[in-house]
Structure formats: structure tokens, C-alpha cells
């Protein structure tokens, strides 16, 4: 029973669809998901918007087989912690055959449906990751 409020996804669409996060100009730390405050620099930090490439590598992954409500039809599906090239980490679904999953592999973002509230409900979209052909 994930939150399915329209205003919530309207607020998050720029960062979720466009991979907009933030970075601190004072210490060059990148934040994705976006953070409005740099916890290291605090008021000395200068946090500005930053668009991520979404490219990175798999630090760890799992295959969810017992899914929460709303995801039952998708199971099994893979989720990884991706370290983006800018240094931020993000959790994301990894699409493609499970046999290709391995830590250290390079991934790039793809725009996909995340889930549907119901047959006639809202369809939520966002970024997933796909393993690069080369690796």
C-alpha cells in the first residue's frame, strides 16, 4: 500500500523522470535523491540543482520474490543499489535477464512503468536500470 497520491508524484516528477538531484558547490558532494541541505557543510554549503546521467555500477542486488501489495504481478523482479558515476547511491529496479546480474556491472537508466494502482488507476512511471551491453 505504497502512497499513490497524485500531488506526491507531481512534486517528484522532475527528479524521478528527469534524474534531477542536487550537488553542493562547497564540497562537491552529489545528492540523488535531491537533498536541499548538505549535511557536511550545513549553512556554508551552496546546494544547486544537478541533472544526473543515471550511469553507474551495481554495488549489490537482490531478486524480490515475495512482493508487497501492488507489485505481486511483477514478481520476481531485481532491485540493486546503484552507485552513480557522480558518487551518489540510489536503489532501482534492474530490468533484463537475471543471469546477467552481478555486482560491479555497469548500468544505464531506462524510463519504465513502475506500477499501476489498479486496472483503472494511475500508472506510475520512473527510472529503472539496464545492464550495459559491453559488461
Amino acid at each position, binding site marked *: 500500500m505504497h502512497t499513490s497520491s497524485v500531488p506526491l508524484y507531481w512534486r517528484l516528477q522532475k527528479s524521478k523522470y528527469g534524474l534531477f538531484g542536487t550537488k553542493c558547490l562547497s564540497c562537491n558532494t552529489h545528492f540523488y535523491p535531491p537533498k536541499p541541505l548538505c549535511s557536511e557543510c550545513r549553512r556554508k554549503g551552496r546546494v544547486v540543482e544537478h541533472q544526473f546521467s543515471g550511469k553507474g555500477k551495481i554495488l*549489490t542486488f*537482490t531478486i524480490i*520474490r515475495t512482493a508487497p501489495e501492488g507489485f505481486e504481478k*511483477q514478481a520476481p523482479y531485481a532491485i540493486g543499489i546503484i552507485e552513480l558515476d557522480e558518487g551518489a547511491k540510489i536503489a532501482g529496479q534492474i530490468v533484463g535477464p537475471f543471469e546477467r546480474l552481478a555486482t560491479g556491472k555497469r548500468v544505464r537508466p531506462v524510463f519504465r512503468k513502475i506500477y499501476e494502482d489498479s486496472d483503472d488507476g494511475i500508472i506510475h512511471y520512473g527510472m529503472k536500470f539496464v545492464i550495459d551491453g559491453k559488461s
Partner: protein
Amino acid sequence: MKVAVVGVGQTRMGEIWEKSLRDLSLEAGSLALQDAGLEGKDIEALFIGNMSAGRFIGQEHLGALMTEQAGLLPIPATRCEAACASGALAFRKALFSILSGHHEIVMVGGAEKMTDLSTGQAVATLASAGDQEWESHIGLTFAGLYALMARYYMEKYGLTREELALVPVKNHMHAMKNPYAQYRYEITVEDVINSPMISDPLRLLDCSPISDGAAAIIIAGEKVAKKFSSPVWFIGGGHASDTVSLHGRKSLSSLSAAIKAAEIAYRQAGVKPKDIDMAEVHDCFSIAEIMAYEDLGFAPKGKGKELLISGETKIGGRMPVNTDGGLKVGHPVGATGIKQIIEIVRQLRGKACNQVRDAKIGLAHNVGGSGATAIVNIFSREGG
């Protein structure tokens, strides 16, 4: 001033369809009063740990409700929430209410009613203790979060799947003698690695169950506590926070909040990890117990498995861990932190189901979410 636990009570843990959250809480509270030899009128305030009655049963405002249910009106009541660490949080707030001089005798309860929902709904409710916007939203579950840590840890430190299975094998063995446990049967390493995959590499027998249950303790300030026959003294505690999201953490193979909470607790108690005679650690998933050994200083980083291989944390070993079966006895999330303290009290009184010989000092480690809240409390048989 010092504070001691003077009474304990708990329900059985499991799928208790015939009892409501109200019934379970009343049962645990009444047993704690009987154990202490106190009456309801002696209780000056109530603190209750509960993660998500609002989603599990659609009921909020538990503090007042439980006070009413227990016939304790009009004493003040506070509901405390920190996901699966709600119980230990309630204990901490109750402790402060005595240390501040406001109260002398306080009841601390923990309760959760999880089986009114379907498994999918319960899994989604538990996932709300994670980062809803950035982790739960993509279908990441609690088993999934711990599975991500498990794979990372296993690859980094060379922990094998069979070695990881030693955690539930030990805790199931301990739970055999626990009359309150949800499951009382022995399992083997083969059973674990052949049980259904939940979230790779974690399997069904690596996971704590979805459970109903309640636990309650009564704590009192020094002057009152000394009148009881076997008070168990609180000697130090720590509470620390980390990012709610797993992806936001610096480390994926330890819980920095637990390391910090333990450091504060040891300092306050004036004891070291080697002084601990037994511990209750938050083994919500197998990997969590191995990380706990390291976060609590029982083993160096990456070497937690050695304590399992050598049998040191088994009953009869040098420092038994999860002597009541840990979270394999059931994990009604809000009750767990209190249930851990109850096992320590039983051990230090010398009346536990798997008694550790001459146990003097016990430690409880309660974790909320995938590690965003960690609370460590240390208790001693002596010190009044």
C-alpha cells in the same frame, strides 16, 4: 538515580487470530503486574511501543486506548514509534520519565497485531518504515533491504550461504524450550538453504515471521526498586540514528547507528563487550545477527561468523546470543524491544528457558527499519 525492571509479562507470539491488540496488551500488562506483585493503582504512567497499528488494524491513539483497556485511567500515556525499535524507544522514554523525577513506577508495553492483514499488505506496511518515496515505491521490501546488505557483506567478507544459515539454526534450537515462541522445531543448514527463496540470497528460514504479540515490563526508581526481591538494574543505554534509506548509507555491511548506540551504552554502563554474559540482538534476518556481533564489538569486522562456527554464541558457549530464540520466536514489531528486555531479566534472575550459568550482565540491541534507529540497553543483576 538508578532504575530497575521489577516485573515482566508477555503473551505467546504467533498468528493469534482469536485475540485483538487490546486483548494481547491487557494480557501482557496484567502478567507484568502479577510478576511484580503490584496493582494497577501503583502504575503512574504508561508508555507503549507500537509501529503501525494505524495500518495494521486502522487504530491510532494507542496510548489512551491501552490505558482505558487496562483500567488505568486517567494516568498519562505515550505511544512511541521507531519502526521495529518502537519497544526499546518506549523503554527509553519511560526510563527518562523516572530519571527526570516525574514518576517512580511506570509500565512499558510493546504490542503489534500484524496478522489481520494479508501477507502482501503486511509486507507493504513494514516497508513503510523504509524510504517510502525512493525505496518502498519501487517495490523494495524489508527482506529485500537485508538481502542487499547480505549479498554485499557475503561478497566483501567471504561469508558463505551455509555459514549464514548457522544463525537461524542456532536460534531455532534456542526457541525449542521457549513456551512463548511462534515456532518450536529444530532446523538444519540444509533446511535453511532449501527453504523457499524470499529475496536472494535470503530464504524463508532466514526471515523473522509476521506475528501478533505483546510484552510489558514495570520499571521503578531506585528507592522503590530496592524493596523488590530481584530487581534487574539498567546500567547504560544508547540510541542513535542513520538514514532511513539504505542507499543513503556510507556502509552497506554494518549499521553505523548500532555502532554508535553501543559505544554510548558501554561508556555509560562502564563495561566492555567482553563483560557481557548474554545478549539479545535484533536478528530480523540472518545477516542482521552477524552484523550485530561486529557492530556491538563481540567480533572484529568481517569475523562475526567465527562466533557461530565455534559455538560461542550458542547456549553453553562463552557468550550466548538470543537465548530465547531471538526474533525466530516471532516478531510482533512493536513488542520485540520489550521482549528482548524480558529475556534479559529472566536470565539475570536465573529463571530463563535456556539459562546461562551465573549471568550477571545482559545486553539488548533493538533495530528499527534497515538500521535507521538503533537502541542498545545494558542491564545488570547487581548495582542497586
